[in-house]
């Protein structure tokens, strides 16, 4: 093991607190609804059903985006444009599916352009937009939060103009598969999420790329002097985030089988940043945790599901989300963690326990 595992260091780890918080929320759910953990098989759709499956399924977009966001935050920045890119991806996909929208207004099971274009063009455009962000940050030396603010402001405008400010709908079944289909008894978004998370984890942890990102996040000039191509690292990270936002955009628009340039991806950047921070990655850059981000994203979705169970209106979930997140963040804040770590260390000393 790389780390010296003792109680004090575990209590100081933010990921521990995130996992504890998730467990507590799930336990409360279980106490209120004993059938919360039950999972059943629905033969008609070939999918497993249950609250847990639903939480993972519905968190797919945020999880996928927050994988890229983790790397951006590890570089010491934030990407505000992801929500707008989700809208752009949806608008482009629907534009290709329904190029004929002016002649035929009823959506049918067909696509005007080849399906391969529907899938690839939005992803390529989103990746290019990510690259644009990366270019401003790496070559222009602009703070990521401002550089990405530009596309956040423009992006929805671009999406609206692509679709003439209209909302297209489609009934093309291969497109439906992305958001509503199933594979190996699991909803498709879960499969895509697993693939993305594993790919990002392998890319960052099995190659040196993760270490490069952390190094650039801590000190860009020092990493440049030690031979890391900092600019290249920044470009790749922003490109990846753009691409992942595109994937999330396809899933989102496939779920509603339509484009919604006003509401698609609304506040996704906020949720993704929250997921990353709850997951223990520091906003000032440096070390990051893919698993932590995954847990953080699940926490956010679990809270929403939890609040639904109380029968509270959808928009008001935000207030409860805020309260629970406030508790998690306060527990994770440096002074509080130090306090707990000190107490844990004292207890070990008093009981004459194993010294690390």
């Amino acid at each position, binding site marked *: 093991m790389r780390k010296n595992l003792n109680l004090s260091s575990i209590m100081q780890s933010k990921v521990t607190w995130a996992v504890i918080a998730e467990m507590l929320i799930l336990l409360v759910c279980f106490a209120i609804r004993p059938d919360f953990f039950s999972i059943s098989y629905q033969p008609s759709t070939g999918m497993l059903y249950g609250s847990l499956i639903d939480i993972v399924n519905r968190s797919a977009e945020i999880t996928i985006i927050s994988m890229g966001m983790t790397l951006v935050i590890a570089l010491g920045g934030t990407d505000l444009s992801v929500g707008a890119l989700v809208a752009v991806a949806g608008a482009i996909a629907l534009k290709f599916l329904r190029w004929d929208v002016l002649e035929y207004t009823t959506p049918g099971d067909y696509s005007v352009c080849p399906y391969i274009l529907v899938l690839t063009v939005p992803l390529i455009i989103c990746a290019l937009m990510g690259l644009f962000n990366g270019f401003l940050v790496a070559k222009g030396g602009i703070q990521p939060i401002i550089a990405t603010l530009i596309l956040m*402001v423009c992006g929805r405008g671009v999406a609206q103009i692509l679709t003439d400010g209209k909302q297209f709908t489609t009934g093309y079944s291969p497109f439906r598969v992305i958001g509503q289909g199933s594979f190996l008894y699991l909803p498709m978004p879960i499969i895509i999420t697993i693939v993305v998370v594993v790919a990002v984890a392998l890319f960052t942890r099995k190659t040196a790329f993760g270490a490069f990102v952390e190094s650039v996040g801590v000190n860009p000039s020092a990493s440049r002097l030690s031979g890391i191509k900092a600019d290249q690292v920044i470009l790749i990270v922003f490109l990846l985030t753009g691409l992942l936002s595109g994937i999330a955009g396809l899933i989102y628009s496939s779920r509603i089988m339509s484009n919604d340039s006003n509401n698609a991806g609304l506040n996704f950047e*906020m949720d993704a940043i929250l997921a990353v*921070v709850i997951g223990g990655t520091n906003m000032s850059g440096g070390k990051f945790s893919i698993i932590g981000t995954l847990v953080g994203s699940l926490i956010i979705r679990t809270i929403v599901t939890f609040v639904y169970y109380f029968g509270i*209106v959808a928009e008001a979930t935000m207030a409860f989300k805020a309260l629970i997140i406030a508790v998690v963040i306060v527990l994770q804040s*440096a002074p509080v963690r130090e306090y707990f770590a000190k107490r844990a260390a004292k207890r070990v000393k008093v009981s004459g326990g194993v010294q690390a």
Partner: protein
Amino acid sequence: MKKQSVFSRLTNPKYIMVYATIGIFLIIYAFGAFLYGDKGFMTVRTFVNLFIDNAYFGISAVGMTMVLITGGIDLSVGAVASLTGMFIAYGTSVLNLHPLTCIFAALVMGVSLGLLMGWVIHYLKVPAFITTLTGMFFARGVCSLISRESIDIKHEFIDSLASWKIYLMKYVDGNWVRIKPIAFINFNVILFVIMIIIGTFILQKTRFGRNIYAIGGNEQSASLMGLPVGRTKILVYGFNGLCSVLAGISYALYVKSGWNLSLQGGELEVITCAVIGGTLLTGGVGYMIGTLFGVLLKSVIPALITFNGNLLSWWGKIATGLLLLLFICIQRFVVTSSKLKKA
């Protein structure tokens, strides 16, 4: 201290960004005058309308500028302003309270939320982005808990305040007449101008204002110098809460209703105004006069699109984005060239 001449004070390079904002505003305004001068773009009315239609953004931008100068950020302003509107709407039409009572409640709520967020940011060392994001979720959620429907505000006090206006007059042949086309300023415009003046005074003439710049320049040095870093930061967020509530009142007077989803994304528009006005998000640099012109510059684009009449309003967003890009590039250029000079 040596007294500098007015000229050398005005040509100080630290004002370059402010001049750039004013310059680009004048260029765009002249462009509009050239294209749509015959449709009435050059009238006083069009100019005053820029203030009337964007007073609420401007009021909020005053507080936001201070927060940005300390190196922080506040994402909760739109939600707090929306909540203020909701307080007034729900209080007057459902609870039958006097609007002033509702406004007082909103002020207490906004300022204490701001102070609380400032406390969490300073003492618990949670990033400002995350703290105020949580504040935004909270305020927005409470809005929706109060009502999911838009509530009309019907109260004589609000009506009289909203319709109160001063007509702009001109002196013709020994008596005052209203200028044509009729232009007026209302309560919102006066509040906006007063807030800009108060903001300028705080930043330039008080110890508190100098502390704000010092913290934004380098928080560690400021604290080593013995400046009250914690108190200043908490008060800045409190003041921003106050500005958000005033912006909410102004917005409520403007649309005369409260809606739980109003001003969604307003926080980023306000930040955009401040950035266009020359405030650096890294902290330490920013002027109220720049913010004033930032608001005007951002609001002249929708005005141009309205005058054109053929363009989709979405082009406004794209134009704002491009403007932001332009300003960031200018800022970047100014910062690098001033660094080169120092070196």
